[in-house]
């Protein structure tokens, strides 16, 4: 006779691990145990190397600017001071723009806004490292791409205000910009969807024998989406000429990066399993960002395949105007973040080169402030969100299809009739 199978073995009690950030509100954050390689320490392979040779870099950190503001090591892109000043200027414009639009939302001029404070170097330096004709599939924290490519601030603001000059006709949430001429694909609120789209665009460019590449952007939180993994699979399978960027700002609304898997591996190391090149980069170091994107662009452009880049940074402010980070992390944690402020670091570098000083910096701040205020005044002269009346409501039925079918034509008439009844007078 056989022994009966025990219903419960004498085994340890299983325990579910639910990741928890090191610090919560009321705690004093201490990042001193964070391992940060010194600037210049991380080797730079040739962009043509086999993907596997980059994989040690997925747990390193590409850094160029040291604590004194000097550019050091093999990744130093040796940029012309004029370009450094232009990058500094655009990063400052992004920050001032963010501040003014944040305040505009608080003043009730629009419904929503999202800043990228602390992350300005990433989009701005990437814009300089890419060719002007390359295509971006961004998230909502890459406004620096548009600004660095010269998209009018006033038009961005008109989109934020959903006003009469909004190129998207008031159809999209503020900051969900879209502009083909500036190589900036329509932003989605459904996170991660743009990642396989970027790969598809790059595949198309290769199919047509073009020379342009695509750059896809995603936050570390959304790397948990299936779209992240299908994008990497497609990019690897077809060796698509693209750069896939994870902006790891460590916070997805209130969830720290551990909830997306950061406790067990870096986001850059996701590249290893897909067999694509991977780099982990100090995202608060404009020169490191530039050098890494340049490296990956050169690789993609010479049919070397895709690169996954993790930009390690810190979301210095709330997720959006609808978020209050003091509810889940210590107030002032961003001050403790050891990789510093990207604008201050680039400024220090220019000063160390003898190409910048406090006087010029103050003058530039003043100039940018005036420029952004002027754009805001011009944008507001075309209306802000609460002032949007009924003048253009018929347009909400356009562009659902190229040709408006009968059911939408009928609904348009019904909507107009409803608006007339509500207003008590006729409308165009």
């Amino acid at each position, binding site marked *: 006779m056989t022994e009966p199978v025990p219903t419960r073995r004498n085994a340890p009690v299983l325990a579910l691990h639910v990741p928890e950030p090191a610090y919560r509100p009321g705690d004093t954050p201490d990042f001193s145990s964070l391992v940060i390689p010194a600037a210049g320490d991380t080797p730079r392979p040739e962009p043509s190397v086999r993907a596997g040779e980059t994989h040690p870099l997925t747990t390193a950190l590409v850094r160029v600017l040291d604590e004194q503001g000097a550019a050091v090591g093999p990744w130093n892109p040796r940029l012309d001071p004029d370009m450094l000043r232009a990058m500094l200027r655009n990063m400052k414009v992004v920050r001032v723009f963010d501040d003014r639009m944040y305040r505009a939302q608080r003043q009730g001029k629009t419904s929503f806004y999202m800043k990228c404070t602390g992350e300005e170097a990433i989009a701005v330096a990437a814009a300089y490292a890419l060719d002007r004709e390359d295509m971006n599939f961004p998230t909502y924290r890459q406004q620096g791409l548009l600004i660095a490519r010269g998209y009018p601030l006033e038009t961005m603001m008109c989109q934020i205000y959903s006003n009469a000059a909004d*190129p998207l*006709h008031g159809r999209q949430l503020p900051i969900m910009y879209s502009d083909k001429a500036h190589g900036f694909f329509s932003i989605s609120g459904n996170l991660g969807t743009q990642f396989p*789209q970027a790969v*598809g665009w790059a*595949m198309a460019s290769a199919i047509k024998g073009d020379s342009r590449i695509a750059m896809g952007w995603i936050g570390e939180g959304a790397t948990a989406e299936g779209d992240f993994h299908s994008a990497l699979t497609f990019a690897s399978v077809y060796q698509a000429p693209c750069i896939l960027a994870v902006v790891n700002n460590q916070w997805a609304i209130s969830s720290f990066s551990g909830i997306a898997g950061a406790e067990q591996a870096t986001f850059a190391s996701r590249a290893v399993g897909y067999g694509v090149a991977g780099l982990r980069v100090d995202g608060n170091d404009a020169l490191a960002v530039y050098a890494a994107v340049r490296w990956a662009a050169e690789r993609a452009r010479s049919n070397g395949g895709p690169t996954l880049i993790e930009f390690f940074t810190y979301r210095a402010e709330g997720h959006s105007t609808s978020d209050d980070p003091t509810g889940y992390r210590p107030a002032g944690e961003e001050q403790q973040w050891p990789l510093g402020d990207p604008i201050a670091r680039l400024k220090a570098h220019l000063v160390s080169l003898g190409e910048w000083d406090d006087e010029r910096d103050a003058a530039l701040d003043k100039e940018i402030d005036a420029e952004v205020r002027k754009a805001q005044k011009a944008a507001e002269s075309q209306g802000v969100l609460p002032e949007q009346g009924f003048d253009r409501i018929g347009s909400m039925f356009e562009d659902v299809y*190229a040709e408006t079918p009968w059911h939408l034509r009928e609904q348009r008439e019904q909507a107009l009739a409803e608006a007339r009844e509500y207003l008590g007078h006729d409308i165009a």
Partner: protein
Amino acid sequence: MTTRNMIQAINDAHRVVMASDPDVIVFGEDVGFFGGVFRATEGLQKAFGKTRCFDAPISEGGIVGSAIGMAAYGLKPVIEIQFADYIYPGYDQIVSELARMRYRTAGEWAMPVVIRSPYGGGIFGGQTHSQSPEALFTHIAGMKTVIPSTPYDAKGLLIAAIEDPDPVVFFEPKRIYNGPFDGHHDRPVTPWAKHPASEVPDGHYTVPLGKAAVVRAGEAVTILTYGTMVHVALAATEENGVDAEVIDLRTLVPLDIDTIVESVEKTGRCLVVQEATRTSGFGAELAALVQERCFYHLEAPVVRVAGWDTPYPHAYEWVYFPGPLRMKNALRQVLES
């Protein structure tokens, strides 16, 4: 003119547009060298090269997502989702991205993407190879939903869909790939060669989207249907000696409302027939439209014929399927009340 079954007609549609438009790219699971599990893309890779027709990873989200990127570049992707039952991993990309891109970019990025997918049951495919999810797509603003019921229409509608500037989901009733089906599963299959709609012209022609076909003129009742059920409805009409007007909708969105209203106003009765599960099916939309527009012409309540609200059962496929008996009883109900 060549005699073709549905698969051959669909294959020929690809060949016609791929030959004339180098921006048409075909990909999906197994569609490349092998030509697809139903052979709809057979020979396309050989004829047009590996970068025009190729295999995709088993990743419907990746297939739809990358097709969106290709369309953003300026290509016209025609993608195959191997079974409609597999489309759900790509659903977010379809609903949130593909369908809305023209709208949310104010017309700057159009999405001329065609998603082909075999759908429907009657082939002992079980729950995961038999579904009819068309209502999940007709509910999406910005999508067009097309379902052919003959080889002639399949080719003409597919070419029209590929040439259309908006995204189209193109569901192919796989039960009738090889021959029309009268609903009698216990009888031998009739090949398409015996059906006049298997005479498919060579070269380019289109069947316009948004236009229904009156496949049988009649006076007693209007039957609104599409896909496999067109043939089941036609057979039931003959078997029961009912002078029904059978309308093959062909395109569900945008719907040919004029043809529907004209017919129902004439017959005064309406039977709505779908293979899909009943609740919230496209038939519910048809019934609502008919009562909104033809109420004072109706002599009886609109009656629905549909699959039961269960998953598609493997062993009881023919209990699920809205076959001749369900048709007969529904015809009696709509005619006698």
